[in-house]
């Protein structure tokens, strides 16, 4: 505690400089925590809901191109394919375009069977499979928009039009997917037939075919067989694992992981240079005081410890404020932004992220304090007093 008090008093010497250094560290940890939470949620969204024996078939050109629905039965006959379903991106919104929905038109029975991790009550699966205008809503969306079972709502598309020009498909909320710990239960699903019969173009096409294999060990062979089946056809396919598909979907926004690492890394290196340089200057200014401490009898190692204590304090105070503000942004901002995408509702500061942040604070404090501490240890008392 004695040395901590001395470290605090060292920081109090130039309050504005200390405040600015703490602010710089605060910014770095704010960026780290917010982007880290974003990245973790993204990873969870792409990875955790992906089953190891599920594959996704898309058009080889890219996943926005469609596939003939006739492919579904042919895929179902490939050896070691145990189940098949299909979906079409709906581009949905609720009432107003800004009320974006992650919406798909799916074949209800097979989809509910294959994605049992959506956690839908059995009676509702039954209704979803048999009632043409039934919509399955994820719990997150149901709560966000205040939907209850039996509610009739309009779901509109900013891609698809009906033959009469309308872009709204009236549906009844008759099933709610509770989701699980790893699958947040976001998104809405309408009946493919109900959707396809009314749409004005691209009928009898699907966006993706979902395959369940007899086991992960058959994935490679099934991928090979499926893609071979449609080779040299007008719509060649590209089959990948579900995890790879999800990752590729996210990567269309650019390599977010790399961007996050780059931004955070640049912020930290900059802060490292700023704090290290400022602390070196601060120690130079205090050469006389350090000489006095040595004269009194403070060993060099203890003086170095006090200097490192100062940089650790800067890193910890700035870092903790950064984490607290990041938490507020994620908690409050996430709730507001969830109106635009349920993804934001999944943002969280995980214990792992917090532990890494604390480790980074310690590392930042130690690295920025190393050179100033070394300089402080090397202060020659006789020379220093000659300069005073």
């Amino acid at each position: 505690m004695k040395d901590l008090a001395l470290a605090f008093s060292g920081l109090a010497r130039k309050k504005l400089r200390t405040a600015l250094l703490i602010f710089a560290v605060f910014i770095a940890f704010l960026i780290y925590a917010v982007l880290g939470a974003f990245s973790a949620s993204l990873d969870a969204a792409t990875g955790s809901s992906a089953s190891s024996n599920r594959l996704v078939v898309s058009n080889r050109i890219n996943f926005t191109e469609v596939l003939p629905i006739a492919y579904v039965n042919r895929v179902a006959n490939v050896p070691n394919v145990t189940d098949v379903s299909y979906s079409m991106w709906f581009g949905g919104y609720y009432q107003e375009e800004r009320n974006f929905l992650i919406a798909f038109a799916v074949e209800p029975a097979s989809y509910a069977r294959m994605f049992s991790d959506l956690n839908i009550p059995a009676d509702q699966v039954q209704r979803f499979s048999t009632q043409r205008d039934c919509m399955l809503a994820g719990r997150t969306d149901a709560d966000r928009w205040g939907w209850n079972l039996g509610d009739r709502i309009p779901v509109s598309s900013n891609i698809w039009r009906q033959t009469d020009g309308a872009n709204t498909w009236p549906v009844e909320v008759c099933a709610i997917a509770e989701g699980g710990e790893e699958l947040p239960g976001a998104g809405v699903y309408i009946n493919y037939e109900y959707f396809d019969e009314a749409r004005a173009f691209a009928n009898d096409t699907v966006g993706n075919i979902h395959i369940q294999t007899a086991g992960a060990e058959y994935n490679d062979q099934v991928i090979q067989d499926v893609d071979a089946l449609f080779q040299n056809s007008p719509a060649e396919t590209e089959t990948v694992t579900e995890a790879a598909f999800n990752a590729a979907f996210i990567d269309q926004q650019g390599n977010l992981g790399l961007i996050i690492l780059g931004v955070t890394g640049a912020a930290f290196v900059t802060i490292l240079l700023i704090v290290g340089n400022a602390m070196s200057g601060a120690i130079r200014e205090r050469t006389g005081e350090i000489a006095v401490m040595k004269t009194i009898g403070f060993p060099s190692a203890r003086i170095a410890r006090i200097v490192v204590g100062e940089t650790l304090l800067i890193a910890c105070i700035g870092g903790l404020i950064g984490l607290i503000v990041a938490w507020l942004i994620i908690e409050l901002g996430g709730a507001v932004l969830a109106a635009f995408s349920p993804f934001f509702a999944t943002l969280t500061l995980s214990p792992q992220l917090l532990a890494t942040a604390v480790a980074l604070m310690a590392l930042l404090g130690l690295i920025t304090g190393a050179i100033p501490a070394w300089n402080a240890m090397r202060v020659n008392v006789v020379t220093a007093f000659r300069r005073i």
Partner: protein
Amino acid sequence: MTNALIQIADVAKSYRRGQETLSIFDRLNLTIPHGDFVAIMGPSGSGKTTLLNMLGGLDRPSGGAITFDGKQIENLSESKLSSWRAANVGFIFQFYNLMPTLTAAKNVELPLLLTRLGSGERNRRVQTALEIVGLSERKDHKPKELSGGQQQRVAIARALVADPKLLLADEPTGDLDRTTATEILEMLQLLNKDLGKTIVMVTHDPAAAKYAKRELHLDKGEFEERVS
């Protein structure tokens, strides 16, 4: 001499400046008994401060031996010298050299942070030291809120607080007006007479030197003694 606190035997000090070796003194001898108050005078460059630094273990002699209370100190390691200084020597500087961010009490407490004393005992000792120098009522003031004389008294309290045997003062009144300087010198005299502190004071001021029990003039590497 069994009563000797400090014995300097054949001490030499030289510096290298480029190719040249500059000798400050060669074969310097001096004995300072317990309870002595010595003023060291001499022209600039005669080595007064260098000698003081060597007595305080801040600088090492090029040759010879320095014995403190029967123990040779010139060959001690840096860390042992630090511990030795903390236990045995109090320093008083011309420009006070107080920590600007610490209060008077916290400045005085600094040497006690090197001990195992608890905070209660540290506070009691700080209070006593500040009372000795007559500044207990200003203990919560920072150096910039104190006059030069008051700052020097805080510095004296800091030098005293760990109860060292030896006080080393380098031009302690060099930055003070005559009246304040007299107060400080009387205080040093009091510490020598009443508390039995051995004091070695470097000064240019003959009037200040008069307060010591004896004056030593250092010139051309030799001492000339005058008893006050």
